[in-house]
């Protein structure tokens, strides 16, 4: 998925929405071939047509990442999204489990993830004689700092930057679509509502106002 396209997914509420949202997923049409993992599947209570149910069955029980890889993903996830004064961490929101599932559902993430984790471990082995997960926190943060800032990263670290970008994006996807993450963002929709326009204090804040025509013609609720 290319980033330019994927940004579109978040922007476009509902309008021509789909067309844009869909653009980032063209690559996901391949069947989940020989991936080996994952427990979570169908998503209970979601309407599925027969073909989707059959596909969900093929995902059942598949596991891709090794326990060592999952441990590394968990550490990195909590570095990217740690607990803070507002909300919990990536692992609190079960982001590692989400990533474990999504690479089964979207096999195109498998090689970049596996290879990126291996790249990271090799860096650590060369520097600290240990794979990433067994390094000290300080060592871990040293290497993370070299791949977390694309504008500042050294040329020899670009593969690591690309891996960390993907991981950051997957972690954000997993976290902000969890119950913890949605609450953190303060998203207040997805409930029956009566849309009465932008709150007055917000209009004032931005020096905006509805026209008389709008106030007369638009639906309002008292």
């Amino acid at each position, binding site marked *: 998925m290319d980033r330019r396209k994927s940004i579109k997914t978040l922007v476009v*509420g509902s309008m021509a929405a789909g067309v844009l949202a869909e653009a980032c997923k063209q690559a996901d049409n391949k069947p989940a071939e020989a991936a080996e993992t994952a427990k979570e599947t169908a998503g209970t209570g979601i309407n599925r047509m027969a*073909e989707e149910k059959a596909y969900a069955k093929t995902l059942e029980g598949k596991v891709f990442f090794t326990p060592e890889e999952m441990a590394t993903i968990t550490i990195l996830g909590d570095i990217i999204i740690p607990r803070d004064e507002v909300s919990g961490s990536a692992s609190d929101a079960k982001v590692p489990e989400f990533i474990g599932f999504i690479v089964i559902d979207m096999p195109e993430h498998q090689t970049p993830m596996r290879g990126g984790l291996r790249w990271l471990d090799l860096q650590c082995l060369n520097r600290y004689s240990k794979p990433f997960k067994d390094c000290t926190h300080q060592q871990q943060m040293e290497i993370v700092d070299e791949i977390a800032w*694309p504008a500042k990263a050294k040329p020899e670290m670009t593969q690591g930057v690309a891996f960390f970008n993907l991981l950051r994006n997957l972690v954000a996807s997993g976290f902000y679509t969890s119950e913890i993450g*949605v609450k953190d963002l303060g998203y207040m929709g997805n*409930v*029956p509502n009566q849309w009465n326009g932008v709150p007055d204090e917000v209009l004032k804040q931005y020096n*905006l106002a509805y026209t008389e025509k709008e106030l007369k013609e638009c639906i309002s609720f008292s």
Partner: protein
Amino acid sequence: MGDLQIKKQSKQYDAVIVGSGAGGGMAAYVLAHAGLKVCLLEAGPMFDPKTDSNQLKNPWESPRRGASTKFRPFGDFDGCYWGWEIDGEPYTHKNDTKWEWWRARMLGGRTNHWGRISLRFGPKDFKRKSIDGLGEDWPIGYEDIKPYYDRIDQLLGVFGTNEGLPNDPDGIFLPPPKPRLHELFIRKAATGAGVPVIPSRLSILTKQINKERGNCFFCAQCGRSCKVYGDFSASSCLVIPALKTGNLDLVTNAMAREVLTNKEGLATGISYVNKDDMQEYQVYGRTVVLGASACESARLLLNSKSPRHPNGLANSSNVVGKYLHDSTGADMGGVIPALLDRKRYNEDGVGGMHVYTPWWLDNKKLDFPRGYHIEYGGGFSQPSYGFSWGMEELSDYFNLKGRSMEAGGYGATLKKDYRALFGTRIAMAGRGEAIAREDSYCEIDPEVVDKYGIPVLRFNTSYTDHEIKQAKHMKETFAEILHNMGAIALWGHKDGPENNYGLHAPGNIIHEAGTVRMGNDPRHSPLNKFCQAHDCKNLFVVDGGPFVSQADKNITWTILALSMRTSEHIIDELKNNHI
């Protein structure tokens, strides 16, 4: 499977309809309510939004967090079964054609998830050749179809405002919702650039219109289909009510193979595959109505060869499949820095934009024909897979409250960045009119069949300078609007001549039309002005096929109006024993 045999239904219907979307659904509704005995074939399964919608699900209820699959290209909660690819149902391309073909397989078809943008064609839209010499005029004008628009507005419900615009006719509107915050930013910026912004016109019930349907409760999820029938879908508003008349037999999972004809060349029914038992069936009627979608209906006609119709049914003109065209499309989006760390509230609104821009310029002063409208998006939408994707390239643009947001990052600072950016993004999408051309077409692939053994479509389409220059103009407009509101473009702003200014592949906008066009001259058009085949008087087409041109308006409202008009013509013709 047992022995393969053809099962012939003994019941003789007044009408056999193929397809249950806007066109077929409206035909079923009108004919069944008139007391005719109707059989409706749908290639997919039953779908009732009341029980089957994924409305009000939370993102974590999907294991892929709402990401798309090949089964639901618009996301895991979307209200449409299938999309660009269907297992076992290929289509092919000729030359370097990029055509993308969306196909729904379910009761109600694509109307379960469409954008509900319900625009009337204007007087000029029916007479474009007379204005710019390109394409063809319709055999009908706005005055012929206006009464049907009026009735559909009232029957199905659409909000909007009467603006007195010459080519964007007034309607019978429910009150629109007030603009959201980003839409007020857009209105201010666009108006400053001379681009009008008016309330959108969507078939969503801001007020209740009858007892069968509830009113909108502003969850912004029309794309998932509505459990209270608060928006228009052919399933909830046409076919399900038609079933209640007792005059309609619905056959789901019925994949039409061909239109059957008799020695006189008249249509006698449809042969189809039942996807449940994989047996072959035939169903008979006094009339046959195709609403399978512009391309599927063309495919059916081209696959229905007989001694009387050796070139395919209703195709003595050799025009079936030709003049295929989709809306043009180009997009751009970005972030409004003024909205960083904005106050939270529920701004879901209706499922779609509250404002839009109708075409506003005079082509005489431009280097391309025909126009486009602009759709707008943005705001606090429900997070889903892909949320804030791309922080590695994005956050260095901002200086927030004295803190420079640096690209990439991690940790507590990154969490603050995600929060700050939530609800700051906007998107603009131009949707314009392409020219229908004889050399942009679909045809039967001579070698490839689908898993039912039905020959498939092969596409041969292209764009010309007309469409490319339109896309260029869209991009210039978008850039100016973004600039005026102090927004930062993040995508779609780097397109140029090397990629046709980001012009979408044809088919991608999913407004395909023109394959079975209407016209007064049987040598150049398969259908007459009532969407009745010149070569086969008891055969009708009610989807996007009959469109001579498609305006810069989304075509659904016009499909509905034409289908209602054609259906009433069928009733008259049957009553008068003309067919």
